[in-house]
């Protein structure tokens, strides 16, 4: 632990030391026989078998989304590189601010992989499934109540959702969604108001919604709208695909695709021994894997910043179950901003990222990940290592070492012990957490693990989600974010996920601005995001930890690989240059 | 005796066991002949080498752990020169053996019939049916009341007496010339013992076999044996017809044994007790009379240095000359040592 001097961060924000491109421009000529007969072999690194729910409405986990990805996931819209919805996908979207409606119109030749037409009812049915009283879906959120009649349907008062209409009938191509308000977020894919996928109503209508998740139609023989159709599912293990001849878009070029779940312990060896073309983009590979894979022959590493970030949360209040709002406690141990800032300055996040992340992770400077290039505040400084500043902040705020103690006490002179909550994970993570403690000890703060050791994930979250708790003062965790980055659900006043309970008028106001009427103007919205980032950074109630790449090793026989969000035809753009793996 | 009937001749046989890397004689220089149509009994205390003699004849010793010298002439063949396969031609066929513990001597997992017909598998080429018939015949012969049923049973379903009969049936299945019975009745009740001995005798008569009957029960010997060999510490110390040995016992050991038996005559007296113990293999004196330490009142001069057998009557031999003037202390009139 002698890294305190090696402050390596740049003055202006942070950037990844490593530059990865989301595309792999393979110039090789495509071998004809390769196209005809060969199989694209993909790996899905995951420790458990996938669950097998092909339906995005019902599934919450990444594995399922990944192994069913060639089917297109029923995705409605095409997006640009900022995840903004554009025309040209399965459907186009029009927002009418005056009428407060969103109109979704399907492509003319939009078909399911069994040949039947995609209909307007298919656009509406996901809402029914999500909001049904007996659903197993976890997707329903308060935001859906902005759709007219949705709340009534959700509570079972209404049989149908009155706010979704079909101008040319259920079998037609258009659905209109009537809302109580429209927000700028709706322009982006992944927002929490407009659902982005279709359900094959005709195909599944006979299955009770409660049983949908376990039905054959969802698990064994699901149909899709994407470039490939499902041939076979081996439960929990693999899926195989072949071109979907009813696909409305670009004709797929590969004869077969297979996706296998590979235990994350084994993934490096599997790639090194040339068993797979690439890992499904979206699946998670770690920094330790990168070290193993970066120099593997015949593979090229591609990547883009991930839709996620690590952060530090401070417990500064509680959740009032009566008003269903978060409340700050002035007297809480972590209420002092200087203390929080000092703790962040004490951390050597740059060094840690470098050592453990191998370039795949780097210190985060703000709470919006850089994939949102428009909103990401690259100028934010975040909290680089600065022990001196930390010491000064503490001393100035009255956290002094008294009576010759090794540790600082709080301004009132009371002993100060801060409890750090962290989840049990890999040995590298354990080492990181240990390192954080050491860093805090360096500035004289007596920080201990809650319960003396890292916590098992379930205990960790059930502790944090208690309305009021005092066993965790500061914690390290991560968020995966949606492609629409509005942070209200995480940090809003009434957000249950606001587990540090930081609330302020300013914060509420800044977040409201992001989706206010003015925010239909992109520059305004961008400004709002940046202001919020600045505020949050300054408050340090939730402080950025690290960003990382979502990266994929791609075999050099693959052509047309581009994992960027703007590549809406990812699967049909892929082709192979030789019939066997290299 | 008729030498033609002399089908087994044991000449100067010694068997030594390896104990802690050294060989010690368990039986030494045994000479013995067995005739057809006779029961030769071998008696002696526990550990004097009776079983060893039997297993030596049967060739059941592990070559690495034992050293056997001498000659066992069986109908003109020296058994000790045979290899394992050669021996197997004799075992079970020409020589049958009966063991002491009838329970453990039978394979617990095989039916009685299989265990009996197994002998015939190797020594006859009878058909299956013929073997079955022979099994029933044998069981009947050894006095089992319901052969059909017993043939199908397992050893544990039979009583001790019945098991011993089965073992006898195995031993006689191929009508051997020689049957060695090692304490066949020790584990049994007197009444059963009498029956088993009857069976043995009948079989011997029928097959004209020669039987070596090993026992330490002098009563059994007196009832069944034609000739008797008394063993002590690995040596035969007295050999003669039953009448000779019981009516005119000569060797002090034989006389002591007979005297220590509870009998009508000594009903109310103390029994005679032989002093000391049988020496263990490692402590066996290398010369002199091995019984001498147990009759300390007999002067050393009465014993031979290398005791040999002396014929005292036709067919009656005694080892060592000490028998000539041996008397029990209480009969001696004050010459106690």
């Amino acid at each position, binding site marked *: 632990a002698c890294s305190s001097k090696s402050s390596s961060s740049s003055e202006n924000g942070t950037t990844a030391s490593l530059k990865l491109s989301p595309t792999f421009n393979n110039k090789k000529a495509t071998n004809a026989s390769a196209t005809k007969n060969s199989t694209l072999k993909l790996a899905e690194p995951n420790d*458990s*078998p996938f*669950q*097998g729910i092909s339906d995005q409405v019902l599934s*919450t986990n990444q594995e399922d989304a990944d192994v069913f990805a060639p089917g297109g996931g029923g995705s409605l819209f095409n997006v640009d590189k900022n995840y903004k919805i554009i025309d040209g996908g399965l459907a186009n979207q029009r927002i009418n601010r005056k009428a407060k409606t969103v109109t979704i119109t399907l492509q003319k030749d939009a078909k399911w992989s069994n040949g039947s037409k995609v209909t307007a009812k298919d656009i509406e049915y996901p809402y029914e499934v999500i909001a049904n009283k*007996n659903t*197993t*879906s*976890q997707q*329903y*959120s308060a935001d859906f109540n902005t759709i007219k009649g949705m709340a009534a349907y959700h509570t079972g008062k209404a049989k149908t959702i009155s706010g979704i209409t079909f101008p040319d009938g259920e079998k037609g191509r258009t659905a209109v969604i009537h809302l109580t308000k429209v927000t700028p977020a709706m322009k982006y894919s992944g927002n929490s108001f407009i659902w982005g996928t279709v359900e094959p109503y005709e195909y599944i209508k006979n299955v009770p919604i409660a049983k949908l*998740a*376990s039905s054959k139609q969802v698990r064994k023989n699901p149909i899709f709208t994407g470039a490939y159709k499902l041939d*076979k599912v*081996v*439960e929990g*293990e*693999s899926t*195989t695909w072949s071109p979907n001849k009813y696909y409305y878009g670009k004709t797929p070029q590969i004869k077969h695709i*297979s996706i*296998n*779940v*590979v*235990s994350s312990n*084994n993934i490096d*060896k*599997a790639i*090194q*021994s040339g068993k797979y073309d690439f890992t499904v983009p979206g699946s998670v590979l770690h920094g330790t894997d990168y070290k193993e894979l970066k120099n593997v022959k015949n593979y090229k590493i591609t990547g883009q910043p991930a839709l996620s970030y690590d952060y530090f949360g401070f417990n500064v209040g509680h959740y009032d179950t009566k008003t269903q709002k978060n409340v700050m406690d002035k007297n809480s141990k972590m209420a002092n901003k200087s203390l929080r800032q000092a703790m962040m300055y004490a951390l050597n996040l740059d060094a840690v990222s470098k050592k453990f992340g191998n370039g795949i992770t780097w210190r985060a400077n703000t709470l919006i990940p850089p994939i949102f290039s428009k909103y990401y505040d690259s100028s934010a400084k975040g909290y680089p290592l600065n022990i001196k500043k930390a010491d000064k902040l503490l001393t100035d705020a009255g956290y002094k070492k008294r009576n010759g103690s090794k540790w600082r006490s709080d301004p009132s002179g009371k002993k100060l012990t801060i409890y750090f909550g962290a989840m049990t994970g890999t040995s590298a993570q354990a080492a990181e957490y240990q390192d954080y403690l050491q860093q805090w000890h360096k500035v004289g703060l007596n920080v201990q693990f809650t319960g003396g050791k890292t916590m*098992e994930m*379930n*205990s960790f*979250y*059930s502790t944090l*989600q208690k309305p009021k708790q005092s066993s965790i003062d500061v914690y390290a965790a991560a*968020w*995966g*974010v*949606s492609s629409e980055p509005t942070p209200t659900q995480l940090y809003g006043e009434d957000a*249950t*996920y606001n587990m540090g309970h930081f609330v302020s008028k300013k914060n509420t106001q800044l977040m409201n601005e992001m989706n206010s009427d003015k925010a239909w103007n992109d520059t305004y919205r961008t400004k709002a995001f940046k202001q919020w980032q600045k505020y949050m950074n300054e408050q340090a109630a939730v402080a950025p930890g690290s960003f990382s790449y979502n990266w994929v090793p791609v075999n050099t026989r693959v052509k047309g690989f581009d994992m960027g969000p703007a590549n809406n035809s990812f699967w049909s753009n892929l082709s192979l240059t030789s019939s066997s793996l290299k | 005796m008729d030498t033609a009937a002399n089908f087994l001749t044991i000449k100067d046989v010694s068997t030594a066991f390896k104990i802690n890397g050294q060989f010690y004689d368990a039986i030494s220089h045994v000479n013995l002949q067995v005739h057809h149509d006779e029961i030769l009994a071998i008696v002696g205390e526990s550990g004097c080498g009776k079983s060893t003699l039997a297993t030596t004849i049967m060739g059941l010793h592990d070559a690495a752990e034992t050293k056997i010298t001498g000659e066992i002439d069986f109908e003109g063949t020296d058994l000790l020169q045979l290899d394992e*396969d050669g*021996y*197997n031609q004799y*075992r*079970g066929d020409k*020589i*049958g*053996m009966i*063991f002491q*513990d009838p329970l453990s*001597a039978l*394979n*617990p*997992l095989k039916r009685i019939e299989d265990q009996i017909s*197994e*002998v015939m598998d*190797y*020594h006859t080429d009878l058909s299956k049916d013929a073997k079955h018939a022979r099994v029933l015949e044998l069981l009947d012969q050894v006095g089992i009341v319901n052969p059909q049923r017993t043939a199908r049973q397992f050893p544990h379903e039979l009583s001790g007496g019945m098991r011993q009969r089965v073992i006898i049936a*195995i031993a006689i299945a191929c009508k051997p010339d020689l049957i060695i019975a090692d304490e066949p009745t020790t584990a049994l009740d007197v009444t059963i013992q009498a029956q088993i001995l009857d069976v043995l005798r009948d079989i011997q008569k029928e097959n004209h076999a020669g039987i070596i009957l090993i026992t330490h029960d002098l009563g059994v010997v007196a009832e069944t044996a034609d000739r008797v060999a008394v063993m002590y510490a690995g040596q035969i110390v007295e050999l003669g017809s039953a009448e000779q040995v019981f009516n005119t016992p000569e060797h002090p050991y034989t006389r002591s044994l007979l005297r220590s038996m509870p009998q009508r005559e000594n009903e109310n007296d103390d029994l005679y007790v032989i002093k000391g113990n049988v020496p263990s293999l490692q402590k066996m004196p290398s010369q002199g009379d091995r019984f001498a330490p147990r009759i300390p009142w007999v002067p050393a001069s009465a014993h031979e240095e290398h005791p040999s057998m002396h014929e005292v009557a036709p067919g009656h031999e005694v080892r060592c000359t000490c028998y000539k003037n041996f008397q029990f202390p209480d009969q001696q009139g004050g010459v106690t040592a």
Partner: protein
Amino acid sequence: MWKTILRRFLIMIPEVIILSILVFLLAKAMPGDPFTGSINPKADPAQIKHLMRINGLYDPWYQQYWNWVVHLFHGNLGNSYQYQEPVTRLIAGRAGNTLWLALFTMILTYAFALPMGVYAGRHEGKLPDTIIRVYTYVTYCIPFFVILVLGIWIFGYVFGWFPTTGSISSDASSWLSTIGSRFYHILLPGLLGALFGTVNIVQYLRSEVIDAKHSDYVRTARSKGVPNKDIYRHHIFRNSLLPIAAFAGYSITGLLNGSIFTETVFSYPGMGLLFVNSISYRDYTVITALVLIYGILNLIGTLLSDIILSIVDPRIRIQ
């Protein structure tokens, strides 16, 4: 005998009931709940509370237990929270894999162990015997998973002889290739499991053979003139194999325990791996069902051992 078997089954009932209560309580005592794991901004906490409520997770434990028992009698073990499908179907899908692997491992174990044990016993004290014994000690000392990890690394990756994940390859389509692929996938885990599982059998068999060699009935057989090799074939082998046969049932326990490791290392979707996954997910219904099933399988294993023994050994009769 069937009466005894039936009686044994009846005796099992209270044991299974006690186990079910125990497991149920223990499962509930684990911190967290099935939905804590799915914390992400896409899932609304209110909706999750709603799901908790309709799944009865806020009811008192006895109520939950009672509901569970009632469902049980309808052949319904509840729904997996993680997999969102009926536990019965979920486990049925996995049980086959586990049982195949276990059966195969058992066959291999015996195929290795019997010759080794007999050989070691027959040539007691000689060099091969010493080698076999050192081998058993070494495998006895090495934790099972180390064998597995080394095995998968060497044979799966370095040499690439065996598949390293899953139970079947994704391109097996015909009936024959399906069977073939399944078999190919259990080959390496089965071999490694057998390598580990032989220890007890080898040691036990060895001493049985040595005992049998010196037994009286073998002496009887020799005195019948039975040649040495036949003595081994008809007497020693048979008699010393019997107690081993009874091991078969007990070894189920060991195999099931081992399945947890094998399946984790080989990402082999069986009940063991399902259990490990369900633990971190707090998938109560699955955990409870699996522990119960394993418990019942253990019981059946014991019963099987007793039955086998009574069939092969005429001395033991269940009346």
